[in-house]
C-alpha cells in the first residue's frame, strides 16, 4: 500500500511540472502582455504612459525576457522558497493574495459541497426508490430548473427578488452596517443571512447532476440478485437499501472527489462576480484577462496540485469504501 502511494506521488511531480509549464505558456500566448493592460487602465483614467516608462517597467518585471526564462525563474522560486511571485495587477505578492482569499474560498466550497451532497444524495435515493412517483417528479423538476438556468442568472434574479420584496442588501458577505463592525452575534447572523444565497445558487446546479447520477446508479443496483437476497432474509427495506445498493451507487462520487477540490477554487466564477464575493475565482479571471501571468499561473498551479492530490485521495477512498476494489488491489 505504501509503495503504491509513493509510486503515485512520484508520478505526480512530472505531471505537475508539465501542467505548470503548459499553462504558463498558454497564459502568455495572446498578443501583448501585462503592460497592455496597464496602458489600457491608465488610458481609461485619462493618463498616458511614455514609451521610456514602458521600457523600464518591461525590464523591471522581466517581461523583456523569453517566456521560458520567466517560467524558470518563477517555478524555481516556488519550489525553493514557496514564493509564487508578484501580481502586477494587485501590486502585491501572489502568496499574500492567495492567503487572503483561500480561507473564504475553501470554506464556501466545502460548505457548498456538503450542502450539495446532503440534499442531493437523499433526493437521488428517494427518486430511485419511488420511481415515477409524484415526489420523484417534483424533485426532478426542481433540480432541472437549477440545471437549466445559468446560475449567475439565478443569482441575479434571487438578488433582485430579495431587494424588491424584502429590502435585503445584495452582494458581498455583509450588510453595510456590519461591514466595519467587530465580530458579534449580529455580524454572524448577518453573514449567515448573506452566505446562504451563493451556497444555494452554486449547489443548485450541482445537485441536479448528483441526483440524476444517484438515481440512475441506484436503479441499476436495486434489481440485482443481492438486493433480492437481502430482502428475502427479512431485513427491513431501509437497511436493505442503505447498506447495500446505496454503497455501491456511491462509487462514482468517491472517484470524482478529485474534481471537487479544483472546482472549489475556480468554480462558479460568474456567480462569485455577480454576488461580489472575493474568492479566488474572480481573481483568476481578472488575472487571465490582464495577463497577470504569475498570479494566473500560480492559481492554476495550486489547482493542478489539488487535482492530482484529489485524484489520489479518491483512489484511496474508493479502496476504503469498496472492499471489491481493495481486494483486487492487494491481490
Amino acid at each position, binding site marked *: 500500500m505504501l509503495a503504491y502511494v509513493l509510486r503515485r506521488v512520484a508520478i505526480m511531480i512530472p505531471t505537475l511540472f508539465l501542467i505548470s509549464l503548459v499553462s504558463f505558456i498558454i497564459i502568455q500566448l495572446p498578443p501583448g502582455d501585462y503592460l497592455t493592460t496597464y496602458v489600457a487602465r491608465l488610458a481609461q*483614467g485619462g493618463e498616458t504612459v511614455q514609451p521610456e516608462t514602458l521600457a523600464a517597467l518591461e525590464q523591471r518585471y522581466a517581461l523583456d525576457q523569453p517566456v521560458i526564462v520567466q517560467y524558470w525563474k518563477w517555478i524555481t522560486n516556488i519550489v525553493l522558497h514557496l514564493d509564487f511571485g*508578484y501580481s502586477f495587477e494587485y*501590486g502585491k505578492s501572489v502568496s499574500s493574495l492567495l492567503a487572503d482569499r483561500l480561507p473564504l474560498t475553501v470554506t464556501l466550497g466545502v460548505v457548498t459541497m456538503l450542502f450539495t451532497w446532503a440534499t442531493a444524495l437523499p433526493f437521488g435515493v428517494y427518486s430511485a426508490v419511488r420511481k415515477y412517483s409524484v415526489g420523484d417528479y417534483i424533485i426532478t423538476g426542481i433540480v432541472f430548473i437549477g440545471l437549466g438556468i445559468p446560475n449567475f442568472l439565478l443569482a441575479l434574479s434571487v438578488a433582485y427578488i430579495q431587494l424588491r420584496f424584502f429590502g435585503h442588501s445584495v452582494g458581498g458577505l455583509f*450588510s453595510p452596517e456590519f461591514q466595519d463592525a467587530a465580530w458579534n452575534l449580529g455580524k454572524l447572523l448577518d453573514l449567515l443571512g448573506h452566505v446562504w444565497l451563493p451556497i444555494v445558487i452554486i449547489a443548485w446546479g450541482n445537485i441536479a447532476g448528483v441526483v440524476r447520477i444517484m438515481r440512475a446508479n441506484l436503479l441499476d443496483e436495486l434489481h440485482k440478485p443481492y438486493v433480492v437476497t437481502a430482502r428475502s432474509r427479512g431485513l427491513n427495506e431501509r437497511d436493505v437499501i442503505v447498506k447495500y445498493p446505496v454503497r455501491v451507487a456511491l462509487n462514482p462520487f468517491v472517484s470524482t472527489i478529485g474534481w471537487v477540490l479544483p472546482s472549489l477554487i475556480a468554480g462558479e466564477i460568474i456567480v462569485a462576480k455577480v454576488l461580489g464575493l472575493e474568492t479566488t475565482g474572480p481573481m483568476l479571471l481578472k488575472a487571465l484577462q490582464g495577463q497577470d501571468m504569475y498570479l494566473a499561473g500560480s492559481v492554476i498551479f495550486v489547482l493542478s496540485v489539488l487535482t492530482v492530490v484529489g485524484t489520489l485521495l479518491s483512489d484511496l477512498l474508493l479502496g476504503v469504501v469498496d472492499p471489491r476494489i481493495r481486494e483486487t488491489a492487494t491481490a
Partner: protein
Amino acid sequence: MLAEQVKAGKLPPLEERLPKNPLVVEPFSKEGVFGGTLRTGKLDQNNNAIQDLATSGLVEWTKTDPPEPQPAMAESFEMLDGGKTYEFVLREGLKWSDGEPFTTKDLVYTYEKVLSNKDLTPDPPTWFVAGGKPGKITAVDDRTVRFTFDVPHGLLLSYLCHPAPAGQMWHPEHYLKQFHPDYIGEAEAEKRAKQNGFDTWMSYYEDRNSQWLNPERPGLGAWKLTEAPGASGHASAERNPYFWKVDPSGRQLPYIDKISFIFLEEDAFALRMANGDIDLSISAIGFKSVPLLLRNAEQNNYRVLRWKLDGSYNAVHVNQSHPDPVLRELYQNIDFRAGLSHAIDREEINQALLVGEGLIGHPCGTPGDPYYEEGMGMRFTEFDTDKANELLDAAGLTQRDDDNFRMRPDGKPLVLRALTFPSGNALPEIDVLEYAKRHWAEVGINMTIRNVSRELFYEEQQQGKYDLCGYSAAGYLWDTDPLWYVPTSVLTYWAPLYGEYTASGGDTGMKPEGVYAEIIELYEQLKRAADEDERLELGREILRKHDENVWIIGLARIPFSPVVASNNLVNVREDAVFSFRTGLPAATEPAQLFFQGS
C-alpha cells in the same frame, strides 16, 4: 470622535493640529454637524477610490464650472518670469496625518529622490515637463518653494489642481526614507522588498507610497485609509485629525468621520444603490441602471442627481493616419466624413436607446468647458441620405460591387473595420454601432464591427491599423488630457500613428502634415502660453479645427451623468460636471458633506 482622543491624551488639542491660517471652506448650503459613515464604492478594488474624496493639492479647483485654480495647501501662489517660474507659499503649520510637519523639505525630497530617480521615474510625469524637459523644485525657505522650467509652463496650475494625482503627489520623507536606497543602501532596500514579497525595491516603495494600499502611509487629505481593500471586498477610511480645512465657524473639517467602501460588480452595485445602501456614488454606475435607480429612489430615501456631462459620447473616430495610402487619402477627405455623418439617423438611435432624451453633436469640447464655443460640433448632423450619397460620390466612391456596396477609388472592395470594446462609458458601444452599420449600408458603405475585450482592444489599437474606432471622447478641461483632440499619443484614437510620432519625438509612427501638424503646433503653443486669454484662444482654435473637420463623428450622447446621493446627505452639488479632471466627487468638496440628523 476626536474630542475624546484629545481628552485621553492621544491627540494634541485642535489649535496645535490646525495650521495658523487654515483654509476656510464655504459650505454649499449650510454648516454641518459631525459624525457618520459615508457608504460608497467602486466596481474594481484595484482602482484607488480614496483619491477623489481625500484630495490634497498645493492648489485646488474652485468648486465652480468652469473651475479656477485657488490656494489650498499653498496659501498663495504666483507666476514669475513669464510662466517659467512658479512660487508657492505653504500654510504655516501644515501637518501630515501622523502629526509630522509638512514642509518644503517634502517637496524637495519628492523632486530629488523620486522625480529625479531614474529607477522610480524612468520618464518624468507630463505635469512636470515643459519644452520637453523636466522642471526643478527648489526650497527658498521652510514654506516657500519654486518650480522652475526652461520654457513657460502654461498648464502647471491645471495639472496641480487635478485631484487624482494630487493625493499622493508629495511624498512624506520622514516615512518613506526607510524604503529608499539613498537612505538605507541599495542592498538593504532590495532585501526589505524581497522580505515583503516584492521583486524590486521600486515596487515596494510604490506600494508603501500608495494612499490606497498602505494604511500606514501618512496623508494630507480629509480622510486616511484604515483598512486596505482585500479579500473582504471592502475598505475603510477615517478622518485625518490634522486636516487643514475648516468651516466658517472655524470647526475642523471633514464633518463625516468615516468612509466605508465596497466593491461589487456593476449589476450588484446598482441593486445596492437601489436599496438605499449607498450614500454617495459618483462614478460607479452606467446609464443603463438609471430606470432601476429612479424607480426605487423615493421608497429608499435617496435621490438621483443629473450631473453635467464631460465626454460620454458614443462616437466613431475616423483613422486619419491609416497606413494604407489610398484609405488614408479617403479618410482625410472631408466629403467622406461628412457623407458618413449625414447618413446617420440620429433621431432613430436617440428614440430607440435614450427614449428621445439624448443629445446630438460631435465631440468638440462640451458646453461649460472654457474652450467650447456655442454651436460647435453640429456640422453634418442632419439625416439626409441623398446628401450623404452625393458627398460619398464626390469623395470618389462611385464604383459599386455586386452587393451594391461602394468600392475603394482603386477598385478594391471597401470594408470599414470598426474596432470597439465595452468601455462602460455612455451607451454600450456595440448597440450604437449596430445602428450606424445599418444606416451606412443604406448609402452603400460596408462596415464590420470588431467588439473585443479591453485588453485586446488596446493591443490592436496601438498598431493603428483600424479604419474606425468606436469610443467616447473627453469634453471638459481637455487641455491636461489632450490626446482626445490633439495627436499627442498613440491613444489619439482618430490619428494613432500621428500621435505616436509626436510622443516618440519622431522615432516611430507617421509624420503628420498639413492641418494635423498645425493642431499639434497649436497645442505646443498652448502649453507655453502663460497668459490665460492667449491660452484659451489657442485651445478654441484647436476645437474650431475639429468643428470644421469632424474627425470624430458623434452618433449619440446620453443626456446626463447619474449620481446617487442619500437624502440625508447635505451639501451635495446638484449639477456639477461629472469629470475625472475635477475629481468626480471632489467637485462637491467631500469634506463639507454631512448627514442630516446624525
